[in-house]
């Protein structure tokens, strides 16, 4: 892109601004993304374990049934938390992400539609009478929907880190039907996300099934297996980085990754001993560390021109008053969420 004459632009409206310091926006982006991942992992991992865990009389098992009832709410949480990181993404590295999503436009646009289908199947399972044989099919369909969503995300976000791939793919096919053709770029990344989700999902299954030996055993198995697979796929993913591997090893990403790994091991330890608070805290921080790693990796891989801060040098126009309103509303929202959940779980007066 050639630069336009500055004197000309000065006279005409140009409000291509960043409405707050980049660090603040990046922080919010990463924080909300972590929360989104927590909810998503509880749902996706939970579905995998409910479907494939070794549980006798699976669909009659009270823990499984409880989890089934929880799925729609986890989906609601995943979607509604997920809106925020998507919003902030436009300010942090919107150029490459939006460009990549246009290259895969149809597949991208189908994401909310497919998620909605999965959502209704989860509701169907939650409302189904005990012993309805179709529940198994419904939950499986929902799983397929979620796998689709995650697959397209992995493809698009991997393409976002490779502007030259976007250009090459777009040149051959501007109609929006393309995935990232270098499957090696993202297949490990995708499997890493899915197996990681199983690990994290196992935590919630374990918490809900702490008094059910069989369920807890399945949760332990899946947590361990998920962690092993996530490590293997994670390493394979790093190996596909090629020339970027070296700079990554020197970036902050290597530290956050180490923290993530250590905490996952710690989580395993606490979880096996049924110390859920410790394990839960470790899961959360370790997920956060992984999100930071992901971010560091992106900064290493993306060319300088696509670096989030480059296009906005000198264009930061903070809107502190509006930010203040956001912050106040956010705190009120947190309080209301707390109050509503507390009330819901403590007030049983209507049950008579």
């Amino acid at each position: 892109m050639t630069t336009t004459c500055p004197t000309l632009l000065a006279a005409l409206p140009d409000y291509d601004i960043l409405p707050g310091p980049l660090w603040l926006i990046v922080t919010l982006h990463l924080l909300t993304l972590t929360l989104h991942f927590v909810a998503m992992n509880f749902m996706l991992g939970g579905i995998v374990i409910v479907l494939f865990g070794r549980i006798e009389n699976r669909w009659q098992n009270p823990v499984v049934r409880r989890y089934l009832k929880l799925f729609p709410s986890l989906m609601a949480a995943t979607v509604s938390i997920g809106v925020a990181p998507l919003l902030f993404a436009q300010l942090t590295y919107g150029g490459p992400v939006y460009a990549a999503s246009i290259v895969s436009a149809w597949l991208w646009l189908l994401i909310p539609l497919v998620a909605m289908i999965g959502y209704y199947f989860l509701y169907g399972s939650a409302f189904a009478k005990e012993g309805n044989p179709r529940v198994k099919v419904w939950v499986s369909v929902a799983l397929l929907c979620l796998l689709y969503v995650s697959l397209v995300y992995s493809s698009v976000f991997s393409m976002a880190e490779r502007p030259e791939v976007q250009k090459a793919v777009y040149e051959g096919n501007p109609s929006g039907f393309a995935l990232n053709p270098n499957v090696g770029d993202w297949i490990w990344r995708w499997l890493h996300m899915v197996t990681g989700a199983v690990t994290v999902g196992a935590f919630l299954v374990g918490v809900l099934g702490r008094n059910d030996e069989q369920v807890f055993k399945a949760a332990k198995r899946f947590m361990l297996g998920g962690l092993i697979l996530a490590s293997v796929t994670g390493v394979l993913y790093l190996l596909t980085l090629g020339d970027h591997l070296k700079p990554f090893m020197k970036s902050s990403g290597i530290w956050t990754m180490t923290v993530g790994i250590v905490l996952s091991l710690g989580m395993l330890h606490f979880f096996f001993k049924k110390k859920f608070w410790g394990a839960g805290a470790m899961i959360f921080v370790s997920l956060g560390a992984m999100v930071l790693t992901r971010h560091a990796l992106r900064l290493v891989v993306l060319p300088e021109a696509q670096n989030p801060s480059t296009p906005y040098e000198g264009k930061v126009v903070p809107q502190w008053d509006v930010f203040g309103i956001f912050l106040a509303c956010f705190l009120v929202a947190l309080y209301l969420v707390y109050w509503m959940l507390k009330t819901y779980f403590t007030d049983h007066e209507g049950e008579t």
Partner: protein
Amino acid sequence: MPYPFWDVMVGYGPLMAAIAVIHVFVSHFAIGGGLYLVVAERSARKAGDEGRLLFVKKLSKFFVLTTVVFGALTGVMIWFIIGLLNPKGTEALIHNFVWAWATEWTFFFVEILAAILYFYGWKRMSAKNHMRIGWIYFWAAWASLVVIVGIITFMLTPGKWLETGNFWDGFLNPTYASSVFFRTGVCILMAGLFALLVAARYEAGDLKTRLVRGNTLWALAGLLIAGACWFWYKASIPDATWLTAKHQLSIAASALERFQWATYLLFALLAVLGLLLARMWNTVFAILLMVVGLYWFGSYEWFRESARKPYVIPGYMYANGMRVGDEAAWRRDGLLSHVDFRTGDDGADLWRYSCRTCHQVDGYNPVKQAFDHTDPGFIAGSILGIHKMKRALDPFPGSEKIRKPMPPFMGSEEEAKILAEWLWERVDQRPMHEAAGLSGPELGAAVYELRCARCHAIDGPDGLRDPLEGESEEDLREFLSDPADGMPALSGDERDQQALLDFILGWYESEKGGE
């Protein structure tokens, strides 16, 4: 332009409308429905009316399934689609309003949780807490409307923001306040319509009649609020915007007419079917009202969307994502030098970035018929003057110029030629006399229609009759061969040209004969 252009096989307009209309309908229901549920719950509890309480319960299940799932995900879909169809516009909006959106998100979050707990809480919580959660739901949902309306109205009337770039100037823009209340009325109406649908499935009887009458009154109240606020809204639109919409943009003007008569229709249907014939209420009635309601509100949204054509942010950015401020520089440097994603076919790329947002060559809002039987010179000339195209036939008597709402072509003359060649390969290249098998005055009239009438009328204040009066054939040919800026020069097939000149000269012959 750092983004690729999605060359989807359908028109951008219908694609956007299909998703937006559904979402807008459900999202307004999601707000009004919240109010409906708590108010109805309270009054049923107070009256000890078990039948009505059960109705509210049933409605709340339907409500959660439509709003929390369908409403939320179609909302996400809107996010996705605007990013795909207009990444530049989306970028501009998010960069200026991200904190507003973030604020809306906090409400959205509370809203979703409250809806779920309200639904699951029926059998569990005390009546008092249950209704408290209902109220939290409603206020959070309404607050999200209060925020999002700032951004929606900004896209029609950016107000002082254009000069200052200040958040509040854009957010609290001229149509903001009236829109909040207008839409609140719409929300209430929508809730009534949905409740009427649920009520239709009840067995005939006193309870049903009571429900239908109550819900109809509720819907009518919403319609009255919206109707009253509509006048306020209309008055708050700046004159220039309003006059342009009403007199220069045919799409906006016809949407406005549809909206107005649909208001009366909706009112009449509610009064007759819902009040007078309440005993006969059935699913067909309910669906009929839903359809008319959708049509009514869809017309309003269509009006609002088209009234800002050819802009996405009036005065700042065109619908194809080009900034007004960039015009001079882009014309100078060439459009393609600002495009990061090229396919190797320059003509196609120029078409996509300049025109494709609003047109297909042949299909949605087509251009083919305007360029059939012409020549590349004419097409290139038309492209350079595209923003000056007017509608020759005046569908609104009294207005002088009906613009075709198009942004200027933001490329070089050389690029206009490339695009013209590309378009010419996709049209019927036979000259008019050959294709239509015409000759004499009929041929002249047809060529005139094709080559002049898209920008000029013959008669009227702006017509060609007066300025061309008294010109000889020589003068006319000379003038048309080297015309004003923004007008294509006389070109193309010689027989067609001659017939056109004869046709124009023919305007004055009957006058001479009469004298």
